[in-house]
């Protein structure tokens, strides 16, 4: 076998695959337990050398992508890693979204099959290639046996084995391969031999998405399918007291109306019929505490907590008193970031078909394994009774981590016993979804005459997305058999236990990072308004970077030190951060010299370093962002144009939130409902964007999210350069709120604010 190492553990047979097959994945299954069959499509004559690949008789390669495609380009990146080592061109794969199976677990999430945290390329850079290399070695071993040659005499090219000048399709050897042990630890290619990694080429799905042929959840149809729309509590987590469905039942096309755990579902012959009839449902809901909140009382509540409550401490070091004594320049400022909806362009949907002892689901989620568990738990089924078909998503940005649409469809179909296609409307999405938590943050910072940071305190008031997520996710991962009330108890207890012991890292991440100070303290005060909270592209960084990078800019102006110099002076030994700042600084200077109003921001997130320069103009009180230069170090860029696209997209996504988006409360209800009042960036808002990728041979780090955090502070800092006005509230507006004006009049400039603090 030419020294190929073999693992018995990975040599698992899957009788569920046509033609039998060797099944290996990322080794999550472990020893001793027989894994369930891998959820492959039945393809006549196809064989599956591992969980990720089916090779058809005519040498087509079907790749089961373990991470969900939500637009980030992961199908292209994974196909690149796999194809590089397997020696199949990435664009030659037929790519499918993998269904739930232990072999598709995400190593960064303890084997849970989930996409998020910009982990996918970082986590799979080596494992995905290893599977490709091992599979290629297996094919070569089989070819050597069939052809009576030595492996050393063989080579591969584009899905073919090359022997004595002849090219044989991989498919020719697949059945022999099935009888051979799976090689492991096959040496990976040196980077000098990369054919695809590090090269830019269009996404594998570009043409299907440009021709309307790409299939999303909303496009799936099942025989006998009925359409459902759910009426939910207008105030989050309100419970249904009673409802009158008499008018709805008389509406055209309506089949039935059923009650589910969080609302009333109208089932009809079409979405249009169901949506119209749902408007006729008269439902009475109880009023949770949240119903007492509107935007003014919410802000008062946060302000009071910031002023009066002592937070939990994290990331504290040094002697703060000493640090303040050494500070010759000080600033203190408060920053606000609102609740936000994710608003992926494809509103949530799911198809559920619940039968007597099985269920079948079609939906796009960020975690199909968790979503399947939710279905099984709802129905009191085993996971094995639930077939889950994963679909690519029309955007997510964190939203599809929660699969409430899957549970709702399941609850409806359990009652109707028909296939139910549940479609959320845009109004459902904006008004009754899950939200990026609102935050009020106060930063106090001091620097000595040379610009060395001597003291830094940051306090954040707001909800904890992770705790909220934990409560929701736990029932999904806990083994079946634990009674619901125990699960609820455990979830509640766990959240309570976290309180007072540790701060939810996702709430404060980034507030105390990037710059080295003599002393710092990060504090957190938890507020639970009762609104469901969820990660939103870049999570805590989406608001902490705004506070941190605004504050550092304020301190620079207060100290009369160049904002870029102040940052560079304090990056410590973070050479990657230093380099992106230095590179971006060149653009900052040249744009400044050309007369533009420019702002600078740098922020690390998801192991990636990003610096951004934004130039703005202000006309008639409206902020226009003209140009953004973005410098990123994400290690080796697997597909540089993919990284570029994620930076461009992250900047525009973040710009929408920086300039327009907000979800506000009126008597506990979300005041916005659609894109006319939940505004997002449009083409006219998109600046010219130049992305510079630092050349790196290091292992890849995240790219999906790190482009978002720096844009809001870069723009706010540019607005200061243009107008002398410091905007500390998102979305940025030169027409200030009355409360901000009042605050402003008590400390009208940065200088007096600092003096007041000193």
């Amino acid at each position, binding site marked *: 076998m030419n020294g190929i190492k073999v693992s018995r553990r990975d040599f698992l047979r899957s009788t569920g695959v046509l033609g039998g097959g060797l099944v290996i994945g990322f080794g999550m299954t472990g020893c001793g337990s027989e894994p369930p069959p891998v959820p492959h499509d039945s393809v006549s004559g196809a064989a599956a050398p591992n969980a990720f690949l089916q090779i058809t008789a005519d040498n087509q390669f079907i790749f089961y992508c373990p991470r969900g495609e939500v637009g980030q380009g992961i199908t292209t990146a994974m196909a690149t890693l796999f194809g590089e080592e397997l020696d199949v061109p990435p*664009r030659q794969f037929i790519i499918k979204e993998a269904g739930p199976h232990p072999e598709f677990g995400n190593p960064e999430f303890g084997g849970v099959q989930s996409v998020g945290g910009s982990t996918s390329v970082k986590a799979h850079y080596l494992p995905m290639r290893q599977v490709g290399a091992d599979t290629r070695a297996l094919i070569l071993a089989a070819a050597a046996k069939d052809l009576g040659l030595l492996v050393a005499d063989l080579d591969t090219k584009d899905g073919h084995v090359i022997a004595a000048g002849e090219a044989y399709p991989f498919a020719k050897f697949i059945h022999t391969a099935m009888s051979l042990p799976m090689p492991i630890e096959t040496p990976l290619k040196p980077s000098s031999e990369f054919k695809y990694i590090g090269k830019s080429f*269009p996404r594998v799905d570009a043409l299907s998405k*440009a*021709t309307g*042929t790409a299939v999303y959840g909303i496009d799936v149809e099942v025989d006998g399918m009925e359409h459902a729309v759910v009426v939910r509590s207008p105030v989050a987590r309100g419970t249904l007291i009673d409802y009158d469905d008499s008018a709805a039942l008389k509406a055209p096309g309506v089949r039935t109306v059923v009650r589910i755990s969080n609302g009333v579902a109208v089932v009809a012959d079409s979405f249009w019929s169901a949506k119209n009839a749902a408007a006729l449902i008269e439902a009475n809901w109880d009023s949770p505490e949240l119903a007492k909140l509107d935007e003014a009382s919410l802000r008062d509540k946060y302000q009071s907590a910031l002023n009066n409550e002592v937070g939990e401490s994290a990331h504290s070091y040094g002697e703060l008193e000493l640090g303040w004594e050494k500070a010759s320049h000080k600033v203190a400022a408060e920053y606000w970031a609102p609740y936000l909806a994710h608003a992926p362009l*494809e509103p949530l949907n799911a198809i559920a078909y619940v039968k007597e002892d099985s269920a079948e689901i079609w939906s796009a989620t960020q975690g199909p394994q968790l979503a399947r568990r939710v279905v099984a738990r709802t129905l009191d089924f085993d996971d094995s009774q639930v077939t889950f078909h994963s679909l690519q998503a029309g955007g997510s940005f964190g939203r599809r981590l929660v699969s409430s649409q899957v549970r709702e469809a399941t609850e409806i179909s359990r009652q109707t016993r028909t296939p139910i296609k549940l479609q959320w409307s845009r109004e459902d999405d904006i008004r009754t979804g899950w939200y990026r938590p609102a935050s009020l943050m106060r930063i106090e910072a001091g620097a000595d005459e040379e610009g060395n940071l001597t003291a830094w305190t940051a306090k954040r008031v707001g909800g904890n997305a992770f705790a909220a997520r934990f409560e929701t996710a736990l029932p999904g991962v806990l083994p079946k058999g634990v009674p619901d009330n125990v699960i609820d108890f455990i979830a509640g207890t766990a959240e309570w236990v976290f309180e007072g012991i540790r701060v939810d890292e996702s709430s404060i991440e980034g507030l105390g990072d990037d710059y080295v100070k003599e002393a710092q303290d990060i504090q957190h005060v938890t507020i639970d308004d009762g609104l469901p909270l969820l990660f939103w592209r870049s999570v805590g960084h989406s608001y902490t970077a705004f506070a941190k990078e605004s504050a550092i800019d304020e301190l620079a102006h207060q100290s009369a030190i160049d904002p870029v110099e102040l940052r560079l002076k304090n990056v410590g030994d973070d050479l990657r951060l230093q380099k992106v700042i230095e590179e971006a600084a060149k653009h900052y200077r040249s744009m400044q010299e050309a007369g533009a109003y420019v702002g600078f921001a740098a922020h690390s997130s998801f192991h990636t370093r990003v610096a951004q320069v934004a130039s703005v103009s202000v006309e008639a009180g409206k902020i226009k962002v003209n140009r953004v230069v973005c410098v990123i170090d994400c290690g080796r860029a697997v597909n540089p144009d993919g990284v570029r*696209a994620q930076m461009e997209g992250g900047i*525009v996504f973040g710009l929408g939130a920086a300039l327009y988006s907000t979800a506000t409360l009126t008597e506990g209800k979300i005041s916005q409902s659609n*894109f006319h009042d939940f505004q997002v960036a449009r083409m006219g808002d998109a600046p010219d964007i130049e992305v510079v990728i630092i050349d790196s041979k290091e292992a890849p780090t995240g790219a999906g999210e790190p482009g978002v955090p720096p844009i809001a502070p870069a723009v706010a800092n540019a607005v200061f350069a243009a107008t002398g006005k410091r905007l500390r509230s998102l979305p940025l507006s030169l027409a200030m709120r009355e409360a901000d004006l009042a605050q402003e009049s008590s400390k009208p400039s940065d200088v007096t604010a600092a003096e007041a603090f000193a």
Partner: protein
Amino acid sequence: MINFTLNGSPVSVASTPDTPLLWVVRDELKNKGSKYGCGAGLCGACTMHVNGVATRTCVLPLAAVVGQEVTTIEGLGTPTNPHPLQKAWVEHNVPQCGYCQSGQIMTAAGLLNSNPNPSEQEVTAAMEGNICRCGCYGRIKDAVLTASAIGNSEPVVVDSAEADVQ
């Protein structure tokens, strides 16, 4: 039954006259390329051509297209015979989640129908009603300008190596 022309072929549908054209085309006629994004004419994901003019079909009642010619993304081009805009979309690697792209391309095609050589400002003005949450605007603009430069009549080279995500 209501009759109109879809992508060059006469069709006859049973949906009620108040049903938005989008749902008739998607669910009754099974052309799934046009998307639902807002249901209020705010995002452009549902854009089709009615007699060559880009139109928001999530708010257009079926009754309004009796006897009219409706073109969807499926009628513009196919993976084996893409329209110059679709080719430019691939060349510029435009799509991310891709959900808005049918509507973006139909709006762009409507623009090029009436103005074959738009300026950058004219492209931006025409595309302002189409939301892309992934933020692909810069590439969309570049692709429209590229397609405009190519012109609409040039024969298109087929890229048969294209993989498809399902």
